[in-house]
């Protein structure tokens, strides 16, 4: 299916480059910078976050280079800045906006049969806010960098660090508002603009995931904004909020920071889970196993994720009694996550599975996310966390989730919807090859870090004892493979955008409203408002269409 160019599909108009679509309707720069079209805004975001991904990746490369030698290659002060800027950029400027602002922006209206989001101008505003925030943070990078860690822990960040803490914090503060606006837009759109017949339980699970993510955006992001604001006040005006020397409580900072940042971890993974449900069903040609369970587990994750933040503070001075509660609650959040993994696996059972590139990413996600999640349970156990906290085990854990999970799902989704977004196919053989390179490179980079952490190598140090060198060199070697794996899609996507064979409306034979419209879609998405009469993922046929 993937190698043949679909030039003509019976019953569909002949795809032609001439047909007016959202890409060729107007070529002027102004028409892009002032667009209200959710699809164009998605592309603006796609370009911006891709740039940030490679800036963040550049710092990671330098870190891994440094760690080839036990004595380190750069000064410790420089290393501190490298891991801080890597973390800040990857978390706040790549992963948080990644799927929602690109695929979400593009697909939410398309999947529910709407012409656009509820507030198109606010959508454009959110992109400008993102750019402004990114500008502040990049200014901080150029003006000497920051060294507080992406966690900005006080009192170091408020009273001691001599680096560009304020510009970075302002950048993160500003960007938060772009998340809030996106979340607001999605919630209103999903409530108000579904096509006739598209009931809540007929929605694609990607939409449920976007909804849950939006809830976290709106409830969590204001708290990180306030926290960074207070940090700024303490740093500039010496108002004692977090610094014990002037009457503050540093643990208060950690409470407020992680109240946002733990849910933010789910901001990063929930959209990926939504993508997963679409990929698994499309490439095993089956309805999802246990639709309602998967849908509600997204909401359960969104809510429970607000109750577990103290698991980041077991050994930082939090009361043991609070630690006990947070430990128990952290175990609870594993349940809805596990439900999803089991249901995807059950969906595969007796499906007619094919292994196109998006599916390879999806299968990779299941394994890597499971490892990331299970090691999370080690960390949520009070006793084992005393040993593992602050070591490379943590670094491995969250990279298995954020890179092995979220980035894999993001790439899988990008490959899946690329023909819809651009109207063109990419070379499938290269895409499968890249997926494999990424999988191998990823594991080689981060698996040794589990071992290193368990053996006691602390994170955030520029140097380490010689006995850890073999594992570190393995990790650095893996990182270079991973880097190559990320560059291959960049190249063939750019190629495909201009020269790729035409895709036709539905190259995968997938279900969902977005596949019923031409690729790339016209500005108004649908020529006429679609009417939905069947449940989601109705791959089996139309017979059971009546019940949703």
């Amino acid at each position, binding site marked *: 299916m993937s190698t043949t160019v679909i030039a003509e599909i019976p019953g569909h108009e002949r795809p032609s480059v001439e047909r007016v679509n959202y890409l060729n309707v107007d070529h002027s720069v102004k028409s892009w910078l002032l667009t209200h079209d959710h699809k164009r805004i998605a592309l603006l975001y796609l370009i911006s976050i891709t740039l940030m991904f490679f800036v963040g990746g550049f710092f990671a490369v330098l870190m891994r280079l440094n760690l080839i030698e036990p004595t380190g290659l750069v000064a410790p002060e420089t290393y501190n800045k490298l891991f801080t800027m890597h973390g800040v950029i990857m978390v706040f400027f790549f992963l948080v906006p990644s799927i929602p602002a690109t695929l979400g922006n593009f697909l939410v209206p398309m999947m529910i049969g709407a012409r656009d989001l509820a507030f198109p101008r606010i959508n454009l505003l959110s992109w400008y806010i993102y750019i402004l925030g990114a500008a502040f943070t990049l200014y901080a990078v150029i003006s000497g960098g920051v060294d507080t860690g992406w966690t900005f822990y006080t009192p170091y960040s408020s009273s001691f660090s001599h680096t560009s803490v304020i510009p970075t914090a302002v950048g993160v503060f500003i960007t938060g508002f772009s998340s809030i606006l996106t979340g607001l837009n999605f919630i209103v759109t999903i409530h108000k603009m579904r096509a006739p017949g598209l009931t809540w339980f007929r929605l694609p699970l990607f939409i449920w995931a976007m909804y849950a993510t939006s809830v976290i955006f*709106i409830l969590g992001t204001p*708290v990180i904004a306030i926290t960074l604001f207070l940090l700024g006040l303490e740093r500039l005006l010496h108002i004692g909020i977090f610094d*014990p020397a002037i009457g503050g409580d540093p643990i208060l900072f950690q409470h407020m920071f992680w109240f946002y940042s733990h849910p933010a971890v789910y901001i990063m993974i929930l959209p990926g889970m939504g993508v997963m449900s679409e990929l698994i069903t499309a490439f095993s040609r089956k309805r999802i196993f246990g639709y309602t369970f998967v849908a509600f587990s997204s909401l359960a994750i969104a809510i429970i994720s607000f109750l577990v933040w*103290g698991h980041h503070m077991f050994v930082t001075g939090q*009361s043991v*009694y*609070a630690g006990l509660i947070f430990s128990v609650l952290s175990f609870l959040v594993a349940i809805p996550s596990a439900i999803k993994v089991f249901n995807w696996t059950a969906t595969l059972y007796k499906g007619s599975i094919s292994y196109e590139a998006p599916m390879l990413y999806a299968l990779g996600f299941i394994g890597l996310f499971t490892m990331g999640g299970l090691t999370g349970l080690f960390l949520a156990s009070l006793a084992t966390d005393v040993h593992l906290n602050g070591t490379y085990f943590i670094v491995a854990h969250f990279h298995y989730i954020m890179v092995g999970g979220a980035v894999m799902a993001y790439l899988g989704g990008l490959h899946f919807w690329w023909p819809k977004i651009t109207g063109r196919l990419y070379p499938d053989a290269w895409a499968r090859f890249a997926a494999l390179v990424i999988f191998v490179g990823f594991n080689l980079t981060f698996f040794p870090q589990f071992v290193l952490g368990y053996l006691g190598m602390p994170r955030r140090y520029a140097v380490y004892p010689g006995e850890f060198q073999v594992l570190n060199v393995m990790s650095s070697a893996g990182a270079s493979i991973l880097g190559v794996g990320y560059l291959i899609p960049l190249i063939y996507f750019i190629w495909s955008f201009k020269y790729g064979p035409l895709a036709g409306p539905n190259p995968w034979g997938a279900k969902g409203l977005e596949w019923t419209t031409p690729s790339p879609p016209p500005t108004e998405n649908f020529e006429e408002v679609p009417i939905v009469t069947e449940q989601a993922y109705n791959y089996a046929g139309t017979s059971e269409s009546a019940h949703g």
Partner: protein
Amino acid sequence: MSGHVVPVKTYVFVFLALMVLTGLTTGVAFIDLHAWNTPAALAIAVVKMLLVVLFFMHVKYSPKLTKMVVVAGFFFLSLLVAFTLADELTRNWSPRALDWSTAASVTHSPR
């Protein structure tokens, strides 16, 4: 959006109430209520906040779904406060090696 027109009189009245409450906050700051200093200031602030949310932000005239969203916001804020207090209030239940107040040169009044 829903088309409800609020009489200007209401806005003026709410504005005056906010001004009076601001004066009250300032006044209370000059009286030492000991342990009640913070609760008193917070109580006045909550009343002011409610006035703004209900009238200026039109929540009083909004559909149930909007009200639910507002309540959800406060509910999650209360989670932040409750769990932070769960730590704060139980921190001294068990003995620790050294705590912040003895480590820092400044001494604090007991929590």
